[in-house]
């Protein structure tokens, strides 16, 4: 019972504080980086180079890095709670590289014939245009370094894909028809972050993005990526009609 009263009191205090302050708009410009670790099964066409007894397969697991920047207008319901959306450009980059001279990459089979090519590395870059929807709760009032938490999701749509293959072989003129699947057509990372805001009217924010998973969509359906992401973001906020505290 005490817990219920305490919870109700907390919710009422948050709700009341939401409508207590003045409303205003701010514009954020942000840059960030996220890292993902991925699993071996992402590259089904790479032949294992070592036995599983050796606890490794002979190529480095794909490590994907994602950079983004964006402009997000933010609407402050009061000095504590705000909602934001906007536009964000994200570029993800990943690379497979053999621990040895090369790995075998299997291209599509024709009849009974199967073709392997010796490859040093494969890298891929995907660019997404995204629409973020985020909620921010500032833990203390603004005007000094103030901690906040942010949660939201970004709806990313793939624009471009570029794949680069570094072949390993002696004979000149061999050109493998290596077709690496493009990145997912749609991704939706759902994330939470914690950070601090420094400054009075215009302010600087630095935050740590907690590990999160990504919902992905391809031509065949939707699912969840089994890769965890996490990273950092910094942003600068231009506030309009914000009262000095």
């Amino acid at each position, binding site marked *: 019972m005490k817990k219920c009263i305490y919870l109700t009191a907390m919710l009422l205090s948050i709700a009341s504080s939401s409508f207590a302050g003045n409303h205003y708009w701010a514009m954020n410009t942000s840059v960030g980086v996220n890292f993902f670790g991925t699993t071996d099964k992402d590259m089904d066409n790479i*032949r*294992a*180079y*070592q*036995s*599983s*007894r050796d606890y490794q397969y002979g190529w480095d697991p794909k490590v994907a890095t994602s950079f983004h920047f964006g402009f997000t207008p933010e609407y402050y319901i009061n000095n504590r709670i705000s909602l934001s959306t906007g536009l964000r450009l994200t570029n993800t980059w990943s690379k497979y590289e053999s621990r040895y*001279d090369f790995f*075998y990459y*299997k291209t599509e*089979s024709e009849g*009974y*014939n*199967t*073709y*392997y*090519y*010796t490859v040093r590395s494969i890298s891929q870059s995907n660019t997404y245009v995204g629409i973020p929807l985020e909620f921010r709760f500032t833990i203390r009032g603004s005007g000094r370094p103030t901690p906040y938490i942010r949660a939201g999701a970004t709806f990313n749509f793939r624009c471009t894909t570029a794949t680069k293959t570094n072949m*390993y*072989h*002696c*004979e000149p003129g*061999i050109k*493998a028809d290596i077709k690496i699947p493009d990145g997912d057509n749609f991704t939706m990372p759902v994330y939470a972050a914690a950070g601090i805001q420094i400054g009075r009217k215009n302010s600087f924010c630095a935050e740590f993005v907690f590990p999160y998973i990504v919902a992905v969509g391809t031509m065949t359906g939707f699912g969840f990526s089994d890769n965890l992401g996490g990273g950092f973001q910094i942003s600068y906020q231009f506030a309009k009609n914000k009262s000095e505290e």
Partner: protein
Amino acid sequence: MKKQLAIICMAAISIITACDTDDSIDRSIWINDSEDYNLPEYSEWGYNTFGAKMGRNYFVSCWHENPCIMEWHNSDKTLELTMNGCQKYKKNSSYDSYAATKEDVSLTIIFPCDSVINNCKKLYLLNGKNFDLTDPDIKVLVKRGDNLQEAITDIRSGELHFKRVQILYVNDRFEEAIVSGTFDIRYVSNGEKTWLSDGRFDLGITPDLFW
């Protein structure tokens, strides 16, 4: 002196940067089966491994130089497949890298073919073929340890299935035939009932391994 040093350096660099001979495709690569880590998983990559349950133990490929060999007998139009492995005790846990070896075992199956398969590029003709090992035209031979090879005459049931045969080209050059499939056999030898079950093989047959 400087000229000699430069020549030595250039020779060393050329040796270091020269392309390696592409022999790694011949090596055995063991990927644990996700359900039974005593067996290799069924694969079609030419990993040069095989395995089957052998009673309470296992008959598996054991890093022999030639885990498999195939031979065409033109006189009676039969093909001989030999898997050289060993009988291993069950591993105590998946963390054990290697199970203890009981003895070397080789399994040879000689079966008739409708087509002439006199080189390894023609092995694709086996693709999808099933052989009933109780067929009297099929011979099964087992060699255990230092004993002589024994022809198995009392085969109660058995099947050899070539699920997929691929002709492999590496960098557009022919390399080997990848022969993948499954096998099971129950037989009586010297009054002892023996069975090989849940067998699977993924063999790379290079021209050197085809006779």
